[in-house]
């Protein structure tokens, strides 16, 4: 049984009928179809269902069984809506804002290794690219907020820029700790270095006694980077109506929403790649029961990284529906006086650990 469990998965890579790499195409299609499905529909659906279960509600129930088609119906509705550009808005910035946001959020998917056999663009500076490309979102947010010519939007945009730019520092330093442990910025390579027959024990989170610190710092900072509660002050609906996308309607609104859910998965995938082994199976080999060997492979890899990403998305939603929102100054305090110093500490400690402990 052991060999058959993932033999098909490995065999798929070599499936080349008539010289066409059909197997690889199928493998590449898994993450793409998944991204489309997740980001376009089931991220929003999941959020609604999870929040509903946390709040003693049922959530969407009418469209399809358990409301499974609810998001499709919503998208159809949004497509039919009138696309309003406010008369006093800066039309160019207003239109271009959501586009930049969307591109910034989905471009990072290119360097995410979705399985041992598939990565969109195998850059040798993949991690650096992923950190950098997220910053582009700031431009989109600022364009959207300023272009709307609405005071609430402007407040949201200014807050958002301040927040994302600040939180990039602890986030990047925390990721650097992972990069230091790997000795490379290549995302695929980082994953390969975490493979091993002991499963989860090879993950960077368990490879050093201080890895939990950058892991935690990156998780908190990533919440702020994608504007999730308790750091959702840029779109704080009770203060700023809807923040920088107050004036958006129809498909432009939907694009902003998709970008948000895209970023949510992106940071979740990055944290699982750098600290939790990405596409590696967490199951260890136990003597003859070679769980790790059985559950590793191209298709299994996609399964593991997507499940790990979903787990962190679930934690993000869990936090969002539990915690109140921080105030602007408290947010900055947390970033500059708590997370950044601790990020530096973990950076130094990781460096010491990597140099002196083989």
């Amino acid at each position, binding site marked *: 049984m052991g060999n058959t469990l993932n033999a098909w998965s490995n065999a798929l890579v070599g499936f080349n009928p008539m010289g066409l790499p059909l197997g690889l195409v199928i493998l590449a299609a898994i993450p793409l179809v998944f991204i489309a499905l997740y980001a376009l529909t089931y991220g929003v659906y999941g959020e609604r269902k999870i*929040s509903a279960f*946390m*709040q*003693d*509600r049922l959530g969407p129930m009418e469209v399809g069984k358990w409301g499974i088609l609810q998001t499709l119906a919503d998208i159809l509705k949004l497509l039919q809506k009138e696309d309003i550009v406010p008369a006093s808005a800066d039309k160019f910035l207003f239109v271009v804002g959501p586009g930049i946001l969307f591109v910034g959020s989905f471009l990072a998917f290119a360097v995410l290794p979705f399985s041992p056999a598939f990565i969109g663009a195998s850059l040798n500076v993949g991690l650096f690219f992923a950190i950098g490309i997220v910053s582009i979102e700031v431009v989109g947010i600022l364009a959207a907020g300023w272009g709307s010519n609405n*005071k609430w939007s402007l*407040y949201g945009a200014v807050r958002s820029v301040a927040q994302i730019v600040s939180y990039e520092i602890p986030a990047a330093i925390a990721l650097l700790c992972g990069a230091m442990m790997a000795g490379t910025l290549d995302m695929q390579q980082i994953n390969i270095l975490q493979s091993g027959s002991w499963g989860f024990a090879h993950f960077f989170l368990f490879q050093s006694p201080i890895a939990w610190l950058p892991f935690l710092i990156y998780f908190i900072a990533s919440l702020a980077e994608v504007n999730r*509660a*308790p750091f*959702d*002050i840029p779109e*704080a*609906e*009770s*203060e*700023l*109506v809807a923040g920088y996308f107050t004036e958006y309607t129809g498909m432009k609104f939907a694009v902003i929403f998709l970008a948000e859910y895209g970023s949510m998965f992106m940071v979740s995938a990055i944290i699982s790649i750098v600290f939790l082994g990405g596409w590696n199976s967490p199951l260890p080999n136990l003597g003859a029961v070679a769980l790790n060997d059985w559950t590793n492979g191209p298709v299994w890899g996609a399964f593991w990284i997507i499940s790990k990403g979903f787990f962190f998305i679930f934690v993000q939603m869990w936090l969002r*529906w*539990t*915690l*109140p*929102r*921080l*105030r*602007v*100054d*408290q947010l900055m305090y947390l970033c500059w006086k708590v997370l950044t110093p601790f990020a530096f500490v973990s950076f130094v400690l990781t460096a010491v650990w990597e140099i002196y402990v083989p």
Partner: protein
Amino acid sequence: MQELDIAGQGSVRVTRKSDNVVIIEKDLATEQMVLAMGPQHPSTHGVLKLECLTDGEVITEAVPYLGYLHRCFEKHCENVDYPGIVPYTDRMDYLAGMNSEMAFAIAVEKLLDVEIPRRVEFIRVIVSELNRIASHLVAIGTYGIDLGAFTPFLFCFRDREHILSLLEWASGARMLYNYIWIGGIANDVPADFNKRVMEFVHYFRPFATELFKLLTENEIFVKRTKGIGIMPADVAINYGWSGPMLRGSGVKWDLRRNDPYSIYPELDFDVPVPDGKFSDIGDCLSRHLVRALEMEESLRIIEQCIDKMPGSEGFNPRAGVPKRVRPKAGEVYGRAENPRGELGFYIQSDGKSTKPLRCKARSSCFVNLSAMKDLSKGQLIPDLVAIIGSIDIVLGEVDR
């Protein structure tokens, strides 16, 4: 060095280094921005409009504009028979209709000579305390939303639903009851009402603890509310504050104790005031805390009422209801402790008409809101939202 302040350009510093070298430094000019918060804003709890003068996120001045929900309550009263006014009082503080009706009934009954059956008093107290819990649940839940915690709101509404169905069972309406009449109540409570109320009390107690843990003791919640919008006791009294707002400032003032009405003197309950350990006295957290603790006291009152309530044998809920309400000439001020503070009705009667000559409502929300200008000075926008939420206004009562 010389400092000049040229209007609209920020300050300009002129430093003379020598006869020939003069350094002129200019700050970046900043302007204050007028920000209209409301009347359509998610956290102004209805149609309140606040015109804020802001410097960045800091509010230099916030002026409330009222009247978007003005329905001429007082003028209507002069044209409607006394019993006809009762439904109007429901629509003032629509979250605590029973309490408003009770305040109005108390005021009119002071002018009339009617004997209220004892069972009526008990039923009145039970329904109004139930309504008080429901109202505080809304206050606490929406306060959570104001601070970004959405889940407590739905938990609160889930439990408020039980109260609303109890009140619907008794009165036939979920929100605008018209149940407490002048001199009596519309009808007796259903046969199993007491049993179901006790079931609710037992069901609700653990929930109140859960809510306390989820929201009140939450680190971020405390951070957002502690020390924000502090109102000293003397200023609060000068503003005429009442209810949980005044008790939040540390003044033990509850009309159920200080100007007892109905059967409250017979009942054993505490008036919770913050002790300054968990919160700074007079801040938003204290006001929230008072509401959270008052729910427990209301539960105690309900339990005692159900214990002591006389049976329904030979009970006519309308025994004291006059055929035609025509009070003797004179004026009266009746007041009661509403969930939001003292709701009082000043009524003038000429002794001949079945309509009041003048009826003025002293609205607790309106008085509490009047301190907005003081409270909001120098606060951040998120703090302003926290302050408005802690005042717990119902615009129906502010504008009447």
